[in-house]
């Protein structure tokens, strides 16, 4: 009889330790699920930002882009502030009023969202010294955005500018040396 009574505390101890282990696992699972939810929200923020650009909705763009955000392009002098990028966007959409970002892929990991985009637009007005060609251009962009509290804080953007410019009738030539 006594032997069985001694076994009971042991069994209860076992059960409690199993329950505790699972508590840790359960909280880990909660963390994972919460992160997955944040990633989906962040993807929506990035999608909506590009959609706002296409709609030329500057109020919405300002809601989704942090006031102090930075956009990095490919060159060392190519870091744009929120204000500066809005201006760039204005110039682009004046020349390409039907500009549209087509999402090929939108991915997220943690607070980063990656968007592979096909941008299309028709050149209806002068752009970077090129008179309106009426050409429909399309080129690829890949952006990486860091999203915090529902706003885009930092973006790294690469885009096939050469592809776009050659569609507008430009090509690369060696820089001619300036004769003194």
């Amino acid at each position, binding site marked *: 009889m006594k032997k069985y009574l001694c076994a*009971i505390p042991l*069994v*209860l101890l076992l*059960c*409690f330790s*199993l*329950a505790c282990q*699972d508590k840790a*696992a*359960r909280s*880990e*699972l909660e963390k*994972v699920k919460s992160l997955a939810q944040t*990633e989906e929200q962040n993807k929506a923020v990035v999608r909506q930002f590009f959609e706002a650009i296409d709609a030329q909705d500057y109020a919405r763009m300002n809601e989704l882009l942090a006031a102090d955000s930075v956009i*990095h*392009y*490919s*060159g060392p002098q190519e870091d744009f502030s929120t204000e500066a990028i809005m201006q760039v966007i204005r110039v682009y959409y004046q020349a390409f009023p039907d500009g549209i970002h087509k999402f*090929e*892929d939108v*991915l*997220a*990991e*943690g607070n*980063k969202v*990656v968007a*592979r985009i096909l941008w299309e637009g028709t050149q209806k007005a002068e752009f970077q010294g*090129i008179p309106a060609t009426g050409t429909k251009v399309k*080129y*690829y*962009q*890949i952006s*990486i955005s860091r999203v915090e509290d529902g706003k885009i804080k930092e973006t*790294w953007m*690469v*885009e*096939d*500018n*050469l*592809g776009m*410019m*050659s569609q507008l*009738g*430009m*090509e*690369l*030539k*060696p*820089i001619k040396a300036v004769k003194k």
Partner: protein
Amino acid sequence: MKKCLCAVPLILLICFSFACQDKAAMAELEKYRAQAKLEEQNKAQAKRYFEGLDSGDVEKALAIVDEVFMPGCITHSAGGDLQGIEQVKQYVKNVFLIWSDLHHPIEQIMATGDIVITRIIFKAKQTGEFMGIPATGKQVSVPVIYIYRFEDGKVKEGWLDWDSSLVMMMQLGMELKPTEAKK
């Protein structure tokens, strides 16, 4: 005495039911952990490709391509698609013909599901002809973003994007001019 003994089965029943509930949760967690492990493996594979290019040894780089890419892989870029591993290897051989002092520092690397994304800086010296430009000996430094989709630990499909106009305009002495009308 007997009252305490009756309580024991009840306690055991409660403990078991908790264990069963958590079994479903545990299975889900195991799935996430397995996925996280796979993502780390895929990231390591993606890194190896760039390490191969940076080794300065074309044979080593080609051997690594065999380890990282699937035979039937396809890579999309503005310059065209590379279909199959032989075209990837030809591309790597061309890289070694055009560029020296290759260095691909990885600025960012992310993984989600079967996809790995890397943003690297392509740094090299132009010692061979590139897109019609004779060797300049100039250094270039330009960001490139790669998206790789993995299957069974190897790259099945990839996309890369970069601003090639910047490489050439700012760094290799070219400028954009209107295409001359052909007479």
